[in-house]
């Protein structure tokens, strides 16, 4: 501080960064870089995202996958080396942000319902254990009373260990099963009580066409979007669910971008109405989203995509995919149990923007972290969280194991040899995931209540 003051006297406006606030500075700078383009375009949305992230450690975790991957891969940071990895298993196609709220229900092409991963925004090649740790940490961070976010750090260490062990054990068992030639099974009705309820509700809502009813109405025989705040604005000012109309120029651009997609899906017919959507997601909260109503009386969601996980490993300058949306859709098709989980998943490009298109039907319903928290704090039900952790670990292993790696081989062929019989793997996952979870909670506590927008959004954009 003394030298900082001296420098101010000697040279005005000199930089005075110090190691003391290094973690906070790192988090702020990383968020600033992650949100830079969005902040220059829509600073208000980025500001709302930052407010939303501060609500709860789990929501903070959802908004900071970039921080996690920097912590995993930044040179020079003291990190515990894994005992279960090598170069080949560091090139597995990852979900890259496999927290529990990125799991949800789907209705496949034949009408069967199943549970699978549902967000591939961050997908990319990397070490399989990075995903396993992230999932386990997410389960730990979610295991608190959502109404009392400050209690997130109070989760019993033994329970944390049990959850993380369950993820690691479930993962190792599924990899070993694949290595033994056993076919993976879908996670569907009967897997777990919580998931049964989720699937049942999704089917009910889907059959009832809830997605249409929630966001549109029929006026004079024509279906149109409702506009305005369909969900009330939260007390902290965050938009939760808003639809707005788009001007003719914007509509023309999106219509043009959608044309190739609609040509591939003649069953959807033509574009009838388009609305800009706000309020979804956390990390991707400021992304441009639209809902498109097509003449087949269905709604598809259009969501802007950006680069996913890119680790500093030797590779070609060129990416494997032509656009972030192409990567996201390809990863979805490869990592999900069935390629027809969402038959409407596709790509639409508009200038330098790239969008993924997906079904908006209510058959797709996500796991809710606050539900997991409710289960976790109830001694009579906390075992369900451990059970879910095992299932999700297995689901992640199936996704990794049955997908081609960057080197073009099935994931289990490179993961199984390093996991071996699985002994010790769950222990390592537990140790690392608990540390990851503690870091997430510490980061959240560190910035809680701060005006993050003032620090993250460039002065010129505010």
């Amino acid at each position, binding site marked *: 501080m003394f030298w900082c003051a001296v420098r101010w006297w000697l040279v005005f406006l000199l930089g005075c960064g110090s190691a003391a606030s290094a973690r906070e500075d790192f988090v702020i700078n990383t968020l600033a870089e992650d949100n830079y383009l969005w902040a220059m375009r829509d600073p208000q949305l980025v500001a709302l995202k930052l407010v939303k992230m501060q609500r709860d450690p789990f929501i903070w975790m959802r908004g900071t996958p970039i921080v996690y991957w*920097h912590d995993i891969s930044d040179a*020079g940071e003291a990190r515990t080396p894994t005992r279960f990895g090598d170069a080949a298993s560091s090139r597995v196609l990852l979900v890259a942000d496999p927290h529990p709220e990125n799991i949800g229900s789907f209705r496949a092409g034949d009408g069967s319902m199943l549970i699978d991963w549902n967000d591939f925004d961050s997908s990319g090649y990397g070490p399989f254990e990075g995903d396993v740790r992230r999932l386990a940490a997410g389960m730990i961070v979610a295991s608190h009373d959502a109404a009392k976010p400050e209690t997130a750090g109070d989760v019993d260490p033994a329970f944390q260990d049990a959850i993380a062990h369950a993820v690691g054990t479930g993962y190792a068992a599924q990899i070993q099963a694949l290595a033994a030639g056993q076919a993976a099974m879908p996670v569907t009705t009967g897997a777990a009580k919580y998931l049964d309820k989720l699937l049942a509700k999704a089917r009910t809502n889907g059959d009832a066409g809830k997605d249409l009813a929630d966001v549109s109405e029929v006026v004079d025989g024509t279906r149109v979007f409702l506009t305005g705040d369909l969900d009330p604005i939260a007390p902290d000012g965050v938009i939760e669910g808003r639809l707005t109309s788009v001007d003719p120029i914007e509509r023309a651009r999106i219509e043009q971008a959608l044309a190739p997609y609609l040509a591939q899906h003649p069953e959807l017919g033509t574009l009838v109405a388009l609305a800009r959507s706000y309020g979804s997601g956390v990390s991707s909260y400021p992304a441009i989203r639209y809902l498109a109503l097509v003449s087949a009386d269905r709604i598809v969601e259009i969501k802007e995509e950006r680069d996913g996980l890119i680790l500093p490993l030797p590779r070609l300058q060129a990416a494997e995919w032509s656009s972030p949306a192409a990567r996201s859709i390809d990863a979805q098709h490869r990592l999900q149990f069935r390629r027809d989980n969402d038959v409407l998943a596709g790509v639409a490009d508009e200038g330098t923007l790239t969008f993924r298109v997906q079904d908006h039907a209510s058959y797709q319903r996500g796991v809710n972290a606050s539900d997991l928290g409710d289960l976790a704090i109830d001694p009579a039900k906390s075992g369900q969280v451990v059970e879910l952790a095992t299932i999700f670990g297995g689901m992640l292993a199936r996704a990794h194991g049955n997908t081609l790696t960057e080197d073009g081989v099935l994931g289990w062929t490179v993961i199984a040899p390093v996991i071996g019989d699985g002994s010790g793997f769950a222990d390592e996952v537990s140790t690392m995931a608990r540390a990851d979870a503690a870091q997430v909670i510490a980061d959240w506590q560190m910035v809680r209540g701060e005006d993050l927008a003032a620090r993250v959004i460039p002065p010129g954009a505010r």
Partner: protein
Amino acid sequence: MKSVMKSLALLLAVSPAVALARSQPEPDAPAPDASGSAATEQPGADPVPPPPSVTPAEPNSSDRIVPERQSDPGLATAPFGDPAHHKLELDLEIFGTGAYTSSDGPAFSEFRLDRGELGAVIGLGPYLGSELRLESIRSAQNGGELGIAGDSIVVRVKRAQVFGDYDIAGAPESLSVHGALGITPDPWITALETDYPLRPLSATASERVLGWPTSDLAGLGRVTYGPVRLSVSFGNGEGLDYPERNNGKTTTGVVEALPLDTPDARLRIAAVARDGSVGPARVRDRRFGGGATLWTPLVGAGLEAVQAYGIAHRGDLEALALSGWAEVRPAKPLALVGRFSTIGYANGGGRASSFGGAVALEPWRDRTFDHRAREQCRTQRADQHRCIGMETIGYARLWLALDRTTTSGAAMPIPGADAGAATTLLLIVSTTAPFTVD
């Protein structure tokens, strides 16, 4: 390992071709200059092109333009790589690369444009000048998908500065001052790259392992007194990637000296201190370091050491970066080079290193600079010739190089799993093509 052996075998297989090339007459052999210095000099480095000129100087007293530039080792007419004196100077610098990389993961090969730069300097009367320098970059990040029209190569501004120079009369030694404002060259990178001929193979350690920006939105001031120059840059500290993102500024001070400067040998030493911050969180960006470069007609060599406090977004990281290089020119047009750089992180943060070597052939070089012209330039009066700058020279080089990167401990990209180690065989064509009008 098999791939590494393949790479070595290929290198050995190509060696006879190199030897054969040595025996061929030079297409356009440069004549030794008046002082007897060897004419097989190296390309300069980054910032601005290297040396010598097609038109050996008779500097016009009314045209004093002083942009940053690199020297051509051995051909330098004055202590520091500053000015050229032309009404107009254009230059192109191209590094085209074919690379085969063998890593712990898959092997891959690709052709790259590692550098494509176009610079222009226009003199504005006797004391002022302006420079615009453009560089090519890929529009998407390495391995990323979000670029322009795919991942096109696009052009961005590397330098855009207005500068001025003035010689102060009456001092016991030659005394001159230089000032610039805009996107100005970083004085430390400029100092390191002066007399550094290996830029096509690798950036300096400061740039390669510490991410030191080569230019910045800043004000730059220099004072040259005889064989000593002091440079101070005061700027954003964000380099070319971002505009200013905080209210703190970054100050870089560099002292350079030429304790030995004869036609047969030149020793250049430099020291740097930098303090500032990057990003909206004002992450510390503090550096202390030194470097030395020795040039003789037969051998060139350099060392660099920088202690860093704060790296990228990590203010708590501390590391020592070291590098060294050497070039031997046994006979025209052949050169043999070797280099290494390493960064060791404090507090058990591991180490990342790279090392390699190359054989280089210089099939063409333009005329060398006539050192006799230098004498005409020595003056302390602003209204007379002031040759504190370098002349550029055109050249082309063909490199066959091997580069190996390794990491250990927490410097691994994925500790315990993937060290990111790689061996790369490179075929590089580098050219610097200046054009001047007086």
